């Protein structure tokens, strides 16, 4: 069976922690990650008998911002309800969530499909719920296994966004998540850098076969990996004449594989019913006060208009709020040079070093200085990249960073005119007769080898275009 006969259908349930200062139903601080277990707790988020939830209005406001930004329909009323199930991390044995009357319905997210064409992915609904605590499994075979429970996370507000099963590939799923993350970041309601701030459940099926749910994937990369693994697993199973079991699977982040969650499949009945301790929320009354900032798509279009940069640059630069802000800081040097140096060079260098953009934001002035040197041809592009690398390495060190100017001076990288290198060019031409012969025989690119040798010998201080011209002149062309 040919591969294209397998049509992949993917739907996502994305849970993001809303970046409020306190928890969803009590006053405990939500900023718990640096603190000892069970220090951010009170009777309410511990679910002690008699404690009652009080809604954190900020969480609803944040969620409504998201709903508006994602073009959702806002109902008159939303209602919290209880989802009942037993688990040691769930203090009340029910999660306060939303059922039949969520905060928002419908909506959509625009992404690019795998061919680069615009694609609209529809949303089913958005609702708000509380995060349970966290289990930490300890011990080993020798000492015995045991589990610790940390309720610091209990009651952190979550927003759950459910897409229609309209995604066709793991890459599309990844792009959707990137777009979602960017949108939430622009709205200032979500901090993607906090550990575990996003968790995804993915439904995936091969058309005509049963659907599998992969639970609790906790990274963007993980979603792509889990889906890719699952497609291969399902296709192989079908090829061998097997059938796909409708089941829940867990993603093993380390191995990049999924494993069946339960051997004996028992359907949980969550016994949803309205939460009697919280009044209905008159959502429509809130909407007048929900004001949106500029969102990624609007910013992308503005960058193209205002700075005259290409769509791929604009898309990359606006795909992350801090990157977009960084670009606007640097753009005065020259919108094109800033766009290509940030989008094409800087991002790659940061990724290579696993260095966050935040590390260089406070040194934006020095990055600007570097681009000025390049723009004004005081150093060549090649030297510029070398300087950038040395500069980034010095930023990740402990001492005070070396400025681009200092680096250029120390390494003697100031661009010199071609004439000063005539001797070197002539020497290299003499030493490489074969390359000249190839060039004369019409072999394209043969001269690039010579230019490269000159660049190496001059430590990047020479301009390749100038060298090219000099070679042509020496060869009498």
């Amino acid at each position: 069976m040919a591969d294209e006969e397998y049509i992949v259908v993917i739907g996502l349930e994305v849970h993001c922690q809303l970046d409020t200062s306190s928890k969803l139903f009590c006053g405990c601080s939500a900023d718990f990650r640096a603190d000892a277990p069970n220090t951010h707790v009170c009777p309410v988020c511990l679910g002690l008998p008699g404690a009652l939830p009080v809604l954190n209005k900020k969480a609803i406001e944040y969620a409504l911002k998201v709903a508006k930004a994602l073009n959702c329909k806002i109902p008159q009323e939303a209602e919290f309800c209880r989802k009942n199930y037993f688990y040691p991390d769930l203090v009340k044995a029910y999660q306060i969530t939303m059922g039949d009357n969520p905060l928002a319905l419908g909506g959509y997210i625009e992404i690019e499909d795998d061919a680069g064409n615009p694609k609209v992915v529809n949303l089913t609904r958005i609702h708000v719920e509380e995060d349970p605590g966290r289990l930490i499994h300890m011990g080993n075979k020798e000492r015995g296994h045991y589990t610790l429970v940390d309720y610091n996370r209990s009651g952190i507000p979550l927003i759950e966004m459910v897409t229609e099963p309209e995604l066709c590939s793991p890459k599309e799923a990844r792009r959707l998540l990137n777009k979602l993350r960017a949108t939430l970041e622009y709205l200032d309601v979500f901090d993607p850098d906090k550990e575990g701030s996003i968790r995804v459940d993915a439904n995936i099926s091969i058309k005509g076969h049963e659907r599998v749910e992969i639970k609790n994937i906790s990274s963007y990369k993980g979603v792509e990996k889990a889906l890719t693994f699952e497609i291969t697993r399902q296709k192989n199973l079908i090829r061998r004449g097997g059938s796909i079991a409708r089941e829940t699977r867990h993603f093993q982040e380390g191995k990049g594989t999924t494993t069946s969650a339960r051997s004996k499949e028992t359907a949980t009945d969550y016994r949803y019913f309205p939460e009697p301790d919280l009044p209905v929320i008159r959502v429509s009354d809130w909407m007048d006060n929900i004001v949106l900032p500029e969102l990624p798509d609007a910013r992308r279009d503005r960058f193209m208009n205002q700075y005259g940069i290409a769509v791929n640059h604009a898309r990359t630069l606006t795909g992350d709020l801090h990157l977009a802000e960084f670009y606007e800081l640097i753009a005065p040097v020259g919108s094109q040079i800033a766009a290509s140096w940030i989008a094409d060079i800087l991002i790659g260098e940061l990724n290579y070093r696993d260095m966050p953009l935040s590390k260089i934001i406070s040194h934006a002035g020095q990055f600007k200085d570097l681009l000025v040197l390049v723009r004004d041809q005081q150093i060549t592009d090649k030297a510029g990249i070398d300087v950038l690398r040395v500069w980034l390495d010095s930023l990740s060190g402990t001492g005070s960073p070396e400025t681009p100017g200092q680096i250029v001076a120390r390494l003697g990288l100031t661009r010199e005119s071609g004439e000063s290198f005539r001797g070197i060019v002539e020497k290299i031409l003499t030493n490489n007769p074969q390359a000249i012969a190839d060039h004369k025989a019409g072999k394209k690119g043969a001269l690039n080898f010579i230019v490269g040798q000159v660049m190496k010998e001059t430590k990047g201080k020479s301009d390749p275009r100038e060298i090219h011209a000099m070679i042509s002149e020496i060869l009498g062309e």
Partner: protein
Amino acid sequence: MNDKYNAYLNTTEIPGTGSGILAGIRVSIKDNISTKDIETTCASKILKGYIPPYDAHAVTLLKNAGASIAGKTNMDEFGMGSTTENSAFGPALNPHDTTRVTGGSSGGSAAAVAGGLVSMALGSDTGGSIRCPAAWCGIVGLKPSYGRVSRFGLIAYANSFEQIGPLAANVRDVAKLFSVIAGHDKKDSTSVSKPYDGKVIPDIRGKTIGIPREYFGEGVDRDVAAKVREAITKLEELGAAAVEVSLPSMKYALPAYYVTCTCEASSNLDRFDGVRYGPEPEMNLPWHDAYTKVREAGFGQEVKRRILLGTFALSAGYYGKYYVKAQHARQLIAKDFASALKTCDFLAGPTMPNVAPKIGELTSDPLLMYQADILTVPVNIAGIPAISVPCGTAHGMPVGLQLMGRMFGEESLLNAALAFEEAV
């Protein structure tokens, strides 16, 4: 303190902190109301050893008003029962006849007051749990309007019905205690800003009192009915006008109540799993087996019955048939009461259809026990306030007159009750 009525699960003498209107007064507190540093069990083995780290809002208010806490009172386990026989720690005994029950579920609070151990007590009323023992023990008990008293710290049985309320030997003390606990609390999202100033004056003249036909129907003891009719005649003598009214949807009250309260209870009680408090689970078992063992040993029979009923009624395929239908019935009942209370200032009838039964008389048949709530439950469904005042005896035991008022109309309800109390 000589607790000959088994009214207490735990006696204490925690002095009050304020110098308010309850200074020097000892108040007992039902054991489903959280008290900081004092064991709070809801009369259940599953909460044995649980010491709350916080006070219920009502308890804070009591302390601030100067009251001292004289102990935690016996009750039906988690409030589930009408006789206080469902306590894991033995039944409370009726001070008028210790072979009889106190009524429930706030039976310990009522016995403590009726037996003269304290002058005031807090109870809670989900389907009659303050009014029933008040009537059967011959004291006064008020179920406030839903939302008038904070539920923060009240260990939930059926959240959408219940209120903390006062029990005392007379209307003035009930009004005094109510004035301390009424008012808004931001920790309870269902609480409203309706404080009560405590200024109670006898006043019934010119009021219209509706007598619902259904409150004197089948199942109501003839002697009890006669006593309450006498009381209504007394109200007329005091200048009130009695008119007959009908609440046709009252026939749905018991099923609507028992479906809803068991649904809510099944969810509320799921947290008692032995992980954070209560009896320690067996650590070598898989967690779900450990939970099962803790719950099996920790809950009494009636609690298990209600958890099972509620779990069933909420489960897939039955939710629409039971829970949703019950909510529909609830609206009808509330509407009936609202329309009767448009023309009438109060409704009046017996609090309980009988006098306090002998210990053991009702426990064999849960349906018989549920039917005892028929005259109190509608009030919780409608959310309105109601008070039970003693109006004499039948079969040698106290009978309670129940007065039901308009939503947040406790002021005039207490005034009417005082007028009656002073006249008899």
